[in-house]
């Protein structure tokens, strides 16, 4: 032995200096290793942690698995690159800072103003980012820090803007009015997968619009009926089919409605009365019926969740107040037929839990079905399905391949604009009815830039190639530099809960931008649960701070305890006893060696 070593291994004496030694060697960066030109490359992109909070033990498991794969391949002659980064997590971060602002100063973001608020966000981001990077190093992760990226840094802003313009030029991005999932609390639209569904009891009301209206209807939301323009029945329903095509004028709680009876085979004859009041402006399904049958769309509820002007005594009321009022009026007028309790699937905001209000709004969308010339006339959906079905991308465990395909097959257009301040800006300008999309503001007076920002998954969906220098090193369909050497990446290792939110988007974006898959393998890890098998959370207080356990047992013991329980797709339990037993093993190895 060259150096004398103590009888027991004290991790705290060595870890920091060993990490410094690795970093100083430069070998985290594959450009500095003396590999022959023919050495195959092995690239892993670290799923960028959200800068909303410091890392938890689940992140440690991810780092341990990826570092294992990366170190193994680095030691086996591969040109190995592991790219670090963090995610700006638009809406999540904004909510975090809003909450902080409120508790610390009692101010809302509106009171502070956009510019000052974004400065607050920057300060917050800088803080958490520093913590995250420190935690990542502590785990021993051999990331190439010279390629550190942030989903909202300058280079990524350039990439996002370019992507938006390319997609717009191809007709894949369009602006249109749609029913969006609107959170009246966050004042923002939410993607379908950002909406959580809660089973809960609700009242189903059965009534007639007015005494002379021939068909009774059932609904859980009588207040939206102020905007009904149609009545859908099943054409096979003998009770009602004779009315199809008729337009009936009626008086509903003192307001005039013009209801057109339409036939739709999707209407269930035995649910409620078998007739549905169609409210195009406040239900995604009804919106589609209205498009197909050319019904008028009347907006009843505004962005604050209140009844709009023009609805008499109901205007200005909240939806719940309006509902109560309408219900009591219907009862007083003898129009209420039945009130019954049913199990209802309530849509809630995944961030704040508020009830989602479906609202029509002008938004930017990615059409997943539009044929794109750069995809040889296929749509993004078709291209993304093909690579999974052809096994060009392999999923581990493979049941997730099926889940990916199922989800992709049912995918609707993706709403990418968000009414929040923190995020990528949208390169669009408006003047009256005119819209301009481009690199820079258009010439001339009076143009106003879009104040919305892009869905956070738009930029993280580009992560495999935006971190490797795209668009600068991609010209006329030819890759150069990092993009040529390191893309497609070999493995994406991430949590199964973001298979649809993230993984699927990465596939579509990469196929569109550079015509190749983003990764060859998708390894989906499970969730780390506590010793009793419960989910860890801040509120339950059963979370684990990786830095604390590293301090106590050493990073190696933490890594080994997470690795020895790791099977793809399955949740694993964490316990301090496990870490302790791995620390004992590390000591055993130490004793064998000295």
């Amino acid at each position, binding site marked *: 032995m060259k*150096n004398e070593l103590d009888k027991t291994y004290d991790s705290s004496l060595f870890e920091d200096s060993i990490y410094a030694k690795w970093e100083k060697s430069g070998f985290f960066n594959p450009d500095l290793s003396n590999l022959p030109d023919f050495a195959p490359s092995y690239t892993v992109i670290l799923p960028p942690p959200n800068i909303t909070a410091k890392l938890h033990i689940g992140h440690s498991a991810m780092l341990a698995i990826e570092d294992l794969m990366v170190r193994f391949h680095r030691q086996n002659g591969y040109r190995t690159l592991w790219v670090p980064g963090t995610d700006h997590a638009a809406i999540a971060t904004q909510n975090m800072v809003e909450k902080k602002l409120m508790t610390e100063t009692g101010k809302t973001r509106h009171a502070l103003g956009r510019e000052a608020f974004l400065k607050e966000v920057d300060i917050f981001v800088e803080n958490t980012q520093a913590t995250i990077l420190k935690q990542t190093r502590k785990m021993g992760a051999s990331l190439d820090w010279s390629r550190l990226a942030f989903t909202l840094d300058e280079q990524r802003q350039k990439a996002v803007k370019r992507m938006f313009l390319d997609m717009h030029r191809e007709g894949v991005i369009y602006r249109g009015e749609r029913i969006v999932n609107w959170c009246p609390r966050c004042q923002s639209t939410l993607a379908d997968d950002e909406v959580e569904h809660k089973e809960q009891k609700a009242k189903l009301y059965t009534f007639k619009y007015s005494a002379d209206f021939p068909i009774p209807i059932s609904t859980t939301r009588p207040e939206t009926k102020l905007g009904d323009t149609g009545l859908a029945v099943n054409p096979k329903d003998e009770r009602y089919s004779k009315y199809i095509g008729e337009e009936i004028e009626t008086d509903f709680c003192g307001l005039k409605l013009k209801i057109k009876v339409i036939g739709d085979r999707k209407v269930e004859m035995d649910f409620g009365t078998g007739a549905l009041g169609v409210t195009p402006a406040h239900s995604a399904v009804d919106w589609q019926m209205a498009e197909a049958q050319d019904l008028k769309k009347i907006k009843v509820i505004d962005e604050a969740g209140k009844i709009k002007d023009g609805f008499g005594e109901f205007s200005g009321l909240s939806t719940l107040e309006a509902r109560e009022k309408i219900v009591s009026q219907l009862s007083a007028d003898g129009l209420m037929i039945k009130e019954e309790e049913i199990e209802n699937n309530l849509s809630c905001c995944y961030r704040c839990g508020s009830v989602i209000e479906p609202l029509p709004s002008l938004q930017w969308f990615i059409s997943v079905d539009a044929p794109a010339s750069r995809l040889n006339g296929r749509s993004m959906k078709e291209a993304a399905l093909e690579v999974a079905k052809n096994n060009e991308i392999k999923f581990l465990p493979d049941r997730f391949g099926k889940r990916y395909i199922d989800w992709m097959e049912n995918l609707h257009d993706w709403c990418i604009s968000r009414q929040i301040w923190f995020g990528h800006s949208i390169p669009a300008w408006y003047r009256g009815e005119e819209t301009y999309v481009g690199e820079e503001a258009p010439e001339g007076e009076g143009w106003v830039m879009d104040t919305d920002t892009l869905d956070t998954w738009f930029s993280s969906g580009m992560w495999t190639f935006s971190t490797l220098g795209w668009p600068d090193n991609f010209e006329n369909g030819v890759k150069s530099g990092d993009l040529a050497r390191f893309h497609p990446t070999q493995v994406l290792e991430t949590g199964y809960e973001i298979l649809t939110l993230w993984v699927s988007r990465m596939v579509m974006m990469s196929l569109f931008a550079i015509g190749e898959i983003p990764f060859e393998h998708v390894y989906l890890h499970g969730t780390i649960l506590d010793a009793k098998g419960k989910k860890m959370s801040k509120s339950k207080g059963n979370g684990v701070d990786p830095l604390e356990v590293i301090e106590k047992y050493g990073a190696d013991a933490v890594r080994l305890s997470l690795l020895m329980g790791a099977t793809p797709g399955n949740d694993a339990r964490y316990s301090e006893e496990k870490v302790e037993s791995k620390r004992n093993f590390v000591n055993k190895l130490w004793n064998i060696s000295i």
Partner: protein
Amino acid sequence: MADKWILQELAMTRKTVDESIRNFEFAAAADSLHDFTWNKLADWYLEVAKIEKEKSSILIYILKNVLIMWHPFIPYVTETLWESFNDDILMMKQWPAVAEATGGDSFAVIQEAITGIRNARSENKIEPARKVKAVVVGPNADLLVEQAALLCGLRTGVEAVESAQSAPNEAAIRVVLGETEIYLLGAVDPEKEKARLSKEKENLEKLIAGLSIRLENQEFVSRAPAHILKAEQDKLARYQSELANINDALKA
């Protein structure tokens, strides 16, 4: 012989770990390395090395391989150990091509014998201090006599190993290893054994008497649920057959 065996195990471990990592079976890779390091290297080979001596070059070779393979799992401690006797950086150390190794199978026979003897001793409650003589009969007898140093040195309590054509006549504990049999002589102290058996006999007789009274009690028999009754009857039968065995042993 142990050298060949540990090199063979090392090569097999190297292959398993490599394949497991490439197949994303990280837990399996770690288990295999753990098994090699703890059970094979520490529990066996390092013990053998204490007896056979002069193994430092092979030990360093194995240690280097172990550190290289453990590095992706536990990079800090492996790099720390590595730098104590190497000038290069472990993180960049190529995994060596481990040559196919063979010829380690006969060490497995020794291991089996040692484990068998240890188990027999503990099953027969032989005090650790009591030394025994091993008489080996069968095809592996010569091999085991040749490796007597290991057989005696590795916590077996064996002080001598002999081969024989047939089973000895003395009272012995028999360890069966396929066609080879090991007889442990001097394991049984006849006086002590007799005392133990007598005590056991007394105890059993008491238990049998108690149970019999219970089972002759008509009230119990008619009231007890069928499965309880059956369990009590089985228990009685078991005590009775144990008692018969002890009586036989005492007569011998």
